[in-house]
Structure formats: structure tokens, C-alpha cells
């Protein structure tokens, strides 16, 4: 077998080749570890929802380390003298402040200031950038580049084999793998290190809020890297984790998930069923002092007029998960004031936590969640009092510590 993600589509004996999901560059190693065959799909790739057990994988992220396959994540290279200006006009954050070998989290909006997607931008050199995001974005990038003639946009998703390594022993694992030079790597920095006969790019980034790295190699080095990583990580509890555990870790860390906290603006049908960064609590990503960026006019208007809704972090009494709950202004459900977007019982915080979109005016009063749950097949409902949390639910100093701890 080769490392070609399209290999099934080239199988002339398979009449459904074109309909099959693509296989990640790491599939050959990941598939045998997927004990439950719990596959779903992401951007046309066969993708693990979980491998063995969601909670187990979550605890690996928080207590040892785990790998998450980011081959299906969309990657674009924007290269040329106009690349910085073009991206800076597209995203709400000031990219001119982003140094070479640095990474930044950012979001981009349509003309009405509604969030299209969020992602990370890597500054690979003065004029070369990589943008990564959850959903395909090439059409928007091309539209955004109108008027910037001196750049090239390349769809590079399948040019990289990429793996996220997250958790407290992630640095120890890399060190054991012979990549100890990442010791000095600060959060959101990236470094290129030799690996076998090629190179590995390591960024100190991730989606868990924990100590962690993302590893980027050319596809031919995918399996050698996996093998070296898993050999080095054997004594550090390395374990692949899937979408479900990611979703737990990211919610604890206060990170947004597209299609949960917000609907991508370009795909939203109903008027204003998408969100602005200000509504999503991403005001810190929106820099009105930088030159023009897309959606600026609409966001300024919203800033001046005040928010109608905003995303809140809630700590909910009891232990019944408030998934899909509707929120009210009192226990008697007098007035509906919002809805929960994501919810979980957080093992690390030992709290019943949620993200919720709430009428801004109601945020100063009481918030009650109408929670439905089952007890041995019988439907139950309870009203639970919610408390607003300003900080991420879970933060740990090891996430930012440089040099990082080995445990």
C-alpha cells in the first residue's frame, strides 16, 4: 500500500471507488487501533470518532498524551509579496504583528461581520503563510484575493501528513524521539527539525488547551514519523484519540467548535442564524485599530449598538448534562432567553459545564436551563440554575510553561 489518500479511488475493481471516504496518511496505523470501528467522516476522510473509549482517550489527553489526526484539516499556502496584505484584509486580527515562525489563531467574516470560520495562520517566511481550518475555504480565499495580484494560493491539504500530539507527556515523548530542541519552543511558535532524510515542522499549537504540539511532515514520512512517535511514547501513555475526546477537551479549554457554537456564515440559510466574533466572545480577535478588514463596518456598528446575543460559559448546578437545553430567565420558565450550544460533565473541573448563546440583556439576571435526561428509559426534566464563568473552565500552567515539564 502506498501513502496515497486517494488509493481507493484508483482501485479499478471497486465500482464505488469515487464514493468511498479518503484514507488518512496515518490510516494504516490508526485502523488497527480503532478497536470499536467507530468511524465517521471529516472533509471526505474516514475519521475516528473514538478508537476505544471516549473517556479513556480524554484522560490520556489530560494525564499522559494522545495523537489526533489532522490530515483532514484544510491547509492552504498563500505565498507572494501580497500574501500578508491579502490575509490581513481577510481576517479580523492584525497579522502584520505575526512574526516569521509564529502561529496565530484567527477568524474571518463575510461582509456583514458574520463568522465564516476560524483557524490558524502560520507565517512560514516573510511572504509565505499557511492557513488551516476545519472546512474547505478555497473559494473564499480566491474571492478574498481579488485585487491582490501578486500572490499564489495553493490547496495544500494533501501535501502534509499532520498529527496533533497533546497532553502533559507530549514534550517528554518528543524528547525521547530525539526532538528535544522543541524544549525552547514557546506557545504558538514553530520550528523545523531534521527527521530521518527529511524534515519535521513542529508548532506548539493544539485544540485541547493543554501542553501540546502539531507535527507536520511530507506524506512519505507519515508512517516513519508515526512509528518513531509511538515507540518514543510507549512509556508516556501515548494513545490515539478521536473527535469525541477532542470535543471534551476543547470545551473545557473554552474553544469554539464550528457547527456547535456557530454556523459558518457562508452556509447559513436563515437570516442571522450565524454569529459575529463579538457575539462569540472573540472580541479580542477583532482589531479595529488595524487597517481595513472584511466585516469591519458591520462589526463596528454592532460594537457601537451593543450585542443582542452573546456566547456565555455556564457552570450548571447538578450533574445532568445540559445538552441542547433551552435557557430561561427563571425557574418557572417565564421567558426564553437562549440555548445551550455544547455541554458536558467535565472530569477535570468536576463541574457541569456548557457554552450557551444568550440574549445579552438577560445575561445580567438569572439563567435556568431546562435539562432533559433519562433514568432507565424514563424521560425526566429538571430546571437547573446556571452561573456565568468568565474564564475558560480548565486552565493549567503547564500549557504555557517554557521549557515544558516532562510530566
Amino acid at each position, binding site marked *: 500500500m502506498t501513502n496515497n489518500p486517494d488509493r481507493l479511488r484508483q482501485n479499478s475493481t471497486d465500482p464505488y471507488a469515487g464514493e468511498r471516504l479518503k484514507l488518512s496518511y496515518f490510516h494504516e496505523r490508526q485502523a488497527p487501533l480503532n478497536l470499536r470501528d467507530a468511524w465517521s467522516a471529516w472533509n471526505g476522510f474516514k475519521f475516528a470518532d473514538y478508537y476505544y473509549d471516549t473517556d479513556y482517550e480524554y484522560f490520556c489527553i489530560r494525564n499522559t498524551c494522545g495523537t489526533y489526526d489532522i490530515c483532514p484539516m484544510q491547509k492552504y499556502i498563500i505565498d507572494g509579496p501580497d500574501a500578508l*496584505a491579502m490575509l490581513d*484584509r*481577510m481576517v479580523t486580527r492584525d497579522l502584520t504583528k505575526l512574526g516569521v515562525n509564529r502561529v496565530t489563531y484567527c477568524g474571518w467574516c*463575510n*461582509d456583514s461581520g458574520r463568522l465564516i470560520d476560524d483557524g490558524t495562520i502560520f507565517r512560514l517566511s516573510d511572504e509565505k503563510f499557511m492557513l488551516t481550518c476545519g472546512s474547505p475555504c478555497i473559494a*473564499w480565499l480566491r*474571492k*478574498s484575493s*481579488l*485585487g*491582490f495580484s501578486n500572490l499564489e494560493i495553493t490547496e495544500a491539504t494533501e501535501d502534509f501528513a499532520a498529527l496533533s500530539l497533546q497532553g502533559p507527556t507530549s514534550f517528554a515523548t518528543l524528547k525521547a524521539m530525539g526532538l528535544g530542541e522543541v524544549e525552547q519552543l514557546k506557545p504558538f511558535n514553530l520550528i523545523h527539525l531534521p527527521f530521518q532524510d527529511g524534515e519535521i515542522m513542529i508548532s506548539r499549537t493544539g485544540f485541547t488547551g493543554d501542553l501540546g504540539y502539531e507535527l507536520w511532515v511530507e506524506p512519505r514520512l507519515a508512517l516513519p514519523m508515526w512509528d518513531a512517535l509511538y515507540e518514543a511514547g510507549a512509556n508516556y501513555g501515548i494513545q490515539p484519540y478521536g473527535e469525541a475526546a477532542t470535543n471534551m477537551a476543547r470545551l473545557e479549554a473554552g474553544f469554539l467548535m464550528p457547527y456547535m457554537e456557530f454556523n459558518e456564515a457562508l452556509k447559513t440559510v436563515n437570516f442571522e442564524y450565524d454569529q459575529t466574533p463579538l457575539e462569540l466572545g472573540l472580541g479580542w480577535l477583532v482589531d*479595529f*485599530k488595524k487597517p*481595513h478588514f*472584511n*466585516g*469591519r*463596518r458591520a462589526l*463596528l456598528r454592532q460594537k457601537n449598538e451593543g450585542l443582542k446575543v452573546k456566547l456565555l460559559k455556564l457552570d450548571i448546578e447538578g450533574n445532568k448534562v445540559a445538552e441542547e437545553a433551552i435557557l430561561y430567565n427563571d425557574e418557572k420558565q417565564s421567558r426564553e432567553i437562549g440555548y445551550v450550544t455544547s455541554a458536558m460533565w467535565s472530569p477535570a473541573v468536576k463541574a457541569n459545564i456548557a457554552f450557551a448563546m444568550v440574549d445579552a440583556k438577560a445575561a445580567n439576571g438569572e439563567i435556568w436551563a431546562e435539562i432533559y435526561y433519562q433514568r432507565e428509559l424514563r424521560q425526566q426534566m429538571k430546571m437547573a440554575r446556571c452561573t456565568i464563568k468568565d474564564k475558560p473552565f480548565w486552565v493549567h500552567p503547564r500549557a504555557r510553561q517554557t521549557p515544558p515539564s516532562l510530566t
Partner: protein
Amino acid sequence: MTQHDTIIIGGGHNGLICATLLARAGQRVVLLEANRNLGGLAATREFFSGFNAPLASTLYAMPEKIVAELQLDQHGYTPSSQTLDLIALSRNENPIHIKADTIGGAEVGESTSYGDYQSMLRTFAKALAPFWSKTMPAISDRKLSSLATFGHLGIKLRTMGRADMLEFFRVAMLPMRDLVDEYFKSESLRAALCWDGLVGTSMAPRSPNQSVITVLSRMAGSHGGLHTIPSQGMSSLISALESAAIAAGVEIRTETPVSKVIVGGDEHGQQVDGVLLANGETIRASRVVSSADPKTTFLNLVGAPALEIEFTNRIRRLRTKGYVAKLNLALSSLPKFKGLDEPNGRMITADKMDDLEFAWDSAKYGEIPETPVMEIVIPSLRARGLAPEGKHVLSANVMYIPGQISGGWTAAKKQELLSRLIAILDLHAPGLSTLVEHAELLTPEDIQNEFNVSGGHWHHAEPSVDQLLMMRPTYEAAQYATPIPGLYLCGAGSHPGGDISGNAGRNAAKAILS
């Protein structure tokens, strides 16, 4: 240095009208024109020693209201009341003269039909007329004034009576061909009557879209759609507009191309801050009003980086391909057209509607049509000073000539087209070719280059339903204001569109002052 409140880009009639109205309201206005002559597409140019012609040779849509409001009579402009017959030329039949109410030279039945046809169109044109001089409401705008405009249109249509209103809805989007087929038999008559719905657009007789609306908007002028030529020439209109502008205090600078609109601002938003001239000079003002076409204004002068992404892409997608070429001939004497005592009308050289349709078929695939169709006037019969004594100017609008042809325009290709046109003229006016002292042919590409108009399009942007009214040139810029505070549009790319009417310039001034 002089301080200005407002900079007007472009000295066509819309720019001049807008400048004058703003200056009269007390603003300090400077108008910048790239070319040597004012007037834009209506500027009269000497195309051969002693021979002059404007690109826009006739008037039909200029409202009396604007002439009166600007007191152009006091600045040397006298509108002509002498209308030009629309004349359907045919190679094999006698010419048909189309006047305001009657038809000469066709079967009796045609004249009766023409009465019905004109009466219907006039009813519709009258109902729509007020809306060409109004700012269109923004989509989803719930301001009282916007709702009032919608309400007014509704009342206007309803008070035509139920039957007329329903008939209006039936015919409004018809192809010209279907409409005239219902009324007339003569092939050349039908072709000539189509012309005013099509010329300057990328529509042919069979194209369903806004051709009927175009006819109706052109009928809103003083003579119900018939054309005139001022006795002092089109130049008298432009010089009167210039004189009125100067009298109002407008500073006019010609041969002053603008290379950039300067957009400044701070963390509270963008703000126009003036313009950068091609000569490197900067002129500061907090308001810039562009009569340049929307593509030129937004993509070249402002630049995409200062604009929103979806908006910029809508501007890029505007359809701006022009299909009218201009033929100017310097003639040693008056040509004799078959069947005409004097070629003192507006003559259409189409035997039948398919001549137009087939010419369009070639043009839309980037080919020069085998038999282009011409609208011919000899303005020197009406206006003094266009040609030396005893000599004449023939000015023709030629449809459908693509701006880009396969392989690109070359001198040889232009010569080939010119020969075809003169051969067609010879068929209708035998011996005309021997009178030609000089011929000038401007393709849409030439018009684009000489007059800085995207695509060389008469209307700056195709006046199709998707680019009309509150969609003109596109939403978020259809009320003359643009997404950038301080930047306005006042040209043909804005409502109600092109033709020498001045409505866009006047509406823009009103919107700015309101």
C-alpha cells in the same frame, strides 16, 4: 491651497450636473476630468480636420426639469423641438417613417397598430417616469421615505387601471421581438422599433429581460422617445453645463486624471480623504463623488483592499461589455439615400429583426458580424459648425460589435469592418463611398480606452433587471452612497442608468444633500 468639500471625478454630463447642484448648495466643489474635453461620451471631438462629432449624437432622455433647474437656457443651451423621424431603411422596400403618432410609407393597418402601440407605451412610460428621478429604496430598508417610493410606484401602476396594469406586468419583461410581433407586420418596421430597446445593451430582439423597460425609460424625455439634435449641436449642451457649473462656483480641471481615491479613517471607521492625481498631486476632501463607472471607481480608483470581499466580487461580476461601435464619416457632400428626399432622420439599416439577432449571434461569440446594423444620423443637417460649409458628418451607432474579438482588434480587422459598413451604406445610399473624405471607427475597446469607460459600455453597466433600480450597480451602492463613508457614485452605473439624461447626477446630488 484651496480647500474643497467635494471632489467630482469625471466631467461627463452627470458629473457636471452633480457638481453644479452641490456647488449651488454651498459646497466648494472641484471637478476633475481626465480628457481634454468635458462631456464624456457626449463630448464633441474633431475627428478630422474641420469635421466634428460627439459619440452621443442625439438627445431624447434629457428631462426638461433638469434643463430648467440648471437654467441652461441662460448658459446658451436651447433644446430643439424638431424631432428626428425614426426611419426604417430596407434594401428592397421603401423606407418607413416613424413619427410620434403616425407611420409614413407602410400599410394603413400598420399605422393603426402604431397608434395602439404608442398609446400603450406612453401610458406605461408616464407611470414609470417619476422613478427615474428618484433614489431607489434600499432592499429591506424600512425608512418611511423608502416605503413611500414603493407605495408611489404601486399607486402609479394601479391608477393606470386594472387592464393596463396587468398588461404592463405581461409585457415588461418581454423580448422586444415578441412585443412588436403582436402589433406589426412589416419586417423592417419591426426591426426599427426594436432598436430603441436594444441599442447600448447586450440584448437582441429575442432576449427576454429589460428591453421594454429601456424603451419606456427612453420615452420619459420631452418627445416621447423621439430624438432631437440641438441646433447649436450637442456641444452647446455640454458648454452650457460647464458654464452653469462655473457660475455655481465649481472649479473645473481638465486633463487631470485621478489615479486613486484616498481612503483614510481610524478605529471608528473608514472615511474618504481625497484623491491622488496621476501627476502625483493630492487633493484633499472628505467627499468624493465618482461619475466614473462602478468597476473603474471601485476596482481601480478605490481598490479591493479598502472594500468588502463580497461587495468587490459583485462589482467584478458586473456585466459591462459594450457592443456599440461608433462610425464617423467626413463627407464631401450630402449623400442621397434611396427613397428619401433628405436623410434628415434617424435611419436604421435592418431589413428584419433577424439582421439584429444574427449580428448579436456573431458578437456574443467574439466575432465581427457579417452584416452589422447601423443607426445613422447626419447631425450636420441639424446643427451648425459640425462640418465645413457644404460638407457633412455622418454619425452611426453600429451594433453588435464586441469589445474583444477572437484574436484581438487589429488595424486590419478594423479596416475590414469599416469596409463592410461602407458597403452597407452604399446599398442604402448608392455612391456614398465616393463622398468619404475620412472615416473614423471606434470599437467598444477604443471607447473604453479613450473615455475610461469599462467595456466601452454606454451605460457603464448593463441595464439588465439584475443591475437595475435598487440593484444598480449593486446593493449597498444603489442609493449613490457607497460602503465607504464620503464616497458616492453619480454616473450611468447608478440608477436610472445611462443615456444623456442627467438623472443619475441629479439624483446623486439630492441624495448627498438630503
